């Protein structure tokens, strides 16, 4: 066992997926694999995934990355959630926070008490007012969560908004420091073994041949190995998620540095706004069935709030995933395995989920189908749950003012999602599972934010006397406001903690 031969891993493509994979494998399995990454400077990276989920912190921690250094290097800001504007109705807005509603403790979830107050016609604020993360976000405040679980300042989590084009080089230096090899070159061919059909080697433009045992396809939308070469079918989800283009255009940050990402509904899709230290990322995700590229371009130009710093750039994609992400000796990570629009910032999370599963199921040179099947099962679960959560955002709307919104409002959704919605509508209950990226509070945020109103609540929420409940809710709201008010301004916190280097 000790003398087992190392697995020769070839990472196909740099970019966020490629370098995250290389950094993780060299850190966590140094004695089991040799990692070579092949990339070409001539090929750009997509790098739309600028906003992340709190899980990224666990990834960085495992790699021993210092938070302040990482944030300075990637010009990052803090992120407490996502603001959704105009989704259920024009004029609506809510934040899906990284954190609990209420104190996040006790047997009965806070939203049941909130529902009871609402049903009774009591004086009750929007549910976000009872969330530490939401209140901090709207006040542009930030401080790290308090470690004492008894305090309301402990009831939130956070992620980052960063420049993905800077994250890859940051990881590259870590991965190379841990022994990853990098080969510059354009791949012109992928050689398969004539007998087994496994991938043997990559052929580069220079004529060089790169052989390996395990190929990690991080080639992005091109999906060079798993898609183009191994022809793994793509499951198309565009009937539920019809957006298939995005037009991106960064601008200068001229307003407050918000500790949250915004997603504003547009006529044929939605628009992101991601504030970084040095600029603000903007983009319009739309469906080409409902609007043209020119119209979309015009819409984003009209919408950006600061001076543009690049021309609008159009990207094309299709929602869905490869039927399997691990086929033969090829594991697809990131866009090569599938695509879900960045509405809930899941792109980097999905990369991370694939890397985590790969590390936990890391094969020998001879690959066991048991490891491979388990990997595919885990990745399917991630994709399917995120898919349902995204569809909810579109489907839970009352908007019929454009053909796009009318379509998503009236389309039929997967049974798995319809059951979840029906259950919540009844009595505010959530389909319970512990494994998965978006847990109870996230579903509650989107349901309540998009007018999926429960008809009833948990009976246990009827126990406290009404006047005590009213007072308690008001006191909680005041306490949260007061605590948030004492926290530093988001920009001031960043300038002290992790300012980017000047003269970029």
């Amino acid at each position: 066992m000790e003398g087992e031969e190392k697995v020769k891993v070839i990472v196909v493509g740099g970019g966020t997926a490629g370098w995250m994979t290389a950094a993780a494998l060299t850190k966590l399995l140094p004695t089991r694999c040799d990692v070579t990454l092949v990339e070409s400077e001539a090929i750009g990276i997509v790098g739309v995934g600028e906003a992340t989920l709190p899980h990224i912190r666990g990834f960085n921690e495992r790699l021993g990355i210092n938070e302040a250094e990482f944030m300075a290097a990637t010009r990052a800001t803090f992120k407490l959630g996502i603001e959704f504007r105009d989704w259920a109705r024009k004029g609506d807005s809510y934040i899906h926070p990284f954190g609990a509603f209420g104190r996040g403790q006790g047997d009965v979830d806070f939203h049941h008490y909130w529902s009871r107050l609402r049903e009774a016609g009591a004086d009750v604020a929007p549910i976000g007012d009872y969330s530490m993360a939401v209140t901090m976000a709207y006040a542009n405040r930030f401080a790290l969560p308090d470690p004492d679980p008894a305090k309301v300042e402990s009831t939130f989590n956070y992620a980052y908004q960063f420049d993905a084009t800077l994250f890859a080089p940051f990881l590259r230096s870590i991965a190379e420091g841990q022994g990853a090899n990098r080969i510059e070159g354009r791949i012109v061919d992928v050689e398969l073994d004539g007998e087994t059909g496994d991938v043997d080697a990559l052929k580069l433009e220079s004529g060089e041949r790169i052989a390996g045992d395990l190929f990690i396809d991080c080639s992005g939308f091109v999906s060079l190995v798993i898609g183009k070469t191994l022809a793994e079918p793509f499951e198309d989800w565009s009937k539920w998620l019809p957006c298939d283009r995005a037009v991106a255009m960064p601008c200068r940050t001229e307003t407050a540095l918000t500790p949250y990402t915004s997603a504003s509904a547009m006529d044929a899709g939605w628009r992101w706004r991601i504030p970084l230290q040095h600029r603000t990322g903007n983009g319009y995700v739309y469906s080409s069935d409902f609007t043209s590229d020119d119209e979309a371009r015009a819409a984003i130009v009209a919408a950006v709030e600061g001076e543009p710093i690049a021309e609008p750039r159009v990207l094309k994609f299709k929602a869905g995933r490869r039927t399997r992400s691990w086929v033969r000796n090829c594991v697809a990570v990131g866009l090569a395995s599938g695509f879900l629009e960045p509405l809930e910032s899941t792109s980097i999370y999905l990369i991370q989920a694939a890397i985590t599963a790969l590390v936990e199921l890391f094969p020998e040179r001879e690959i066991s189908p048991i490891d491979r099947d388990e990997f595919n099962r885990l990745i399917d679960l991630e994709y399917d749950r995120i898919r349902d959560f995204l569809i909810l955002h579109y489907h839970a709307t009352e908007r019929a003012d454009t053909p796009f919104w009318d379509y998503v409002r009236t389309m039929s959704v997967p049974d798995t999602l319809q059951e979840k919605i029906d259950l919540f509508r009844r009595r505010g209950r959530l389909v319970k599972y512990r494994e998965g990226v978006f847990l109870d509070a996230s579903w509650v945020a989107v349901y309540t934010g998009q007018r999926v109103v429960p008809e009833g609540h948990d009976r246990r929420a009827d126990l406290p006397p009404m006047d005590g409940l009213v007072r308690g809710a008001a006191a909680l709201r005041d306490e949260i406001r007061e605590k948030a008010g004492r926290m530093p301004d988001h920009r001031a916190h960043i300038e002290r903690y992790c300012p980017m280097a000047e003269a970029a």
Partner: protein
Amino acid sequence: MSDIQRVLVAGGGIVAWSAAAALKRRLPMLDVLVISSPPPEDSLADRLGNTLPSIAEFHSDLGLSDEDTIVRAQSGFRFGSLFSGWGGERADYVHAYGSYGASVGGVPFHQLWLREGHPISYDSFSLGSELGRAEKFANAGMPEVQIGYGLRLNVDRYCELIRAYALHLGASERTGGVVEVERRDDGFIVAAILADGARVGADLFVDCTGPGARIRSRIDHEFEAWSKWLLCDRVSMTRDREESLLDEIAATPNGWTSKCAAAFSSAHGSGEGLLLSQGRLAKPWVRNCVAIGDAAVLVEPLEWTNLHLAHSQIDRLVSMMPGADCAPVELAEYNRQCNAEADRVRDFICMHYVTARRSEPFWKDASSVELPDSLQHSMSLFAERGRLPYYEEETFTRDSWLAVLFGQGSYPRRVDPLAFALPSEQVESTLSACRESIASFAASQPSYREFISQLGQRAPA
């Protein structure tokens, strides 16, 4: 949407009274009436006093203290079970609750132990096993190695205690059995007819009458039998109580036996025992009638899960209480969770047989059954690399699964590569340090007998 107001609980054992107490304590606005009759002799959850550690949480939700449930009810403690003869010629092993060893740098402990070539038995790294074998007691573990304990209930005393508590909380009681039910056109039950002819109406009927499911069985008989996976079809119980911290579960030629209970296959030999048809209802909750305990799931008491399952169902009943119309969408989620839980208990029990190493015809047959898909999934991942997949609603922890698998001599084909991220010397020293700290901690604890006799002095006469 109208609410459920009147709840009728049928049954008269621990399960029924526990359900009544939980409903009254946690949903005091309900009217709870127990139609009580002595539990049938084959109702395992009502008649077996061995519990899992989860009972502590059930008690705390009910507001019952250790003073009540342990001192006054004269309960004993148990750290787990000692399996003898299951691994053929292999030494006995202990499945204790709590942790086995401690992970290092994110690498699970058992992978480190496997990497070192499993030098000493896996249960040497369990504090519960160490204490149990030495008949020593501790009610808390060490920071790095946790223990868990279940109780040994004195069934009659405990049932009296929980009944008194339910009545104290406001439940009412009426003695007599349910002989008939009155149903509406849509199948909902309107009233139960008792032996004396009385008619008792309710909005929700909670059937805790044991395997016969006297109310729930009037709606349908859809039952998923587990007999192709679990061959024991007879069970027997004694009124004896194990006095030590570990229950010895001895393999017999056609089943197993312990001080309190035994199970065997009648097709593989003779013996005295009650009929046991292992399996579960396809849907424990249909319309306004929910089956709890043995009325919903029948499983041999090999790992003492019967009362645990009942508690877990009661907890769900409280936290998922639907409206009076018992909407299918709400019941479906309840049933999904209950079934997932029962099926994983089935898998865990079945795993004991498929990895046992005995040569009698019963054991040959029991170990060669075709596995349920979910167990096949667990077993093949374990066999490949010692990994156990996570399942929702799983009762037993990964450490419990591993305790039995390793105890019976099942090892994976290879060690997880993550275990090689640490230098060999570090792994070796971690293992020996862990072993030493467990041994010295255990040695410093009082004897169990001493501890129990001190508790006994606090008990009222």
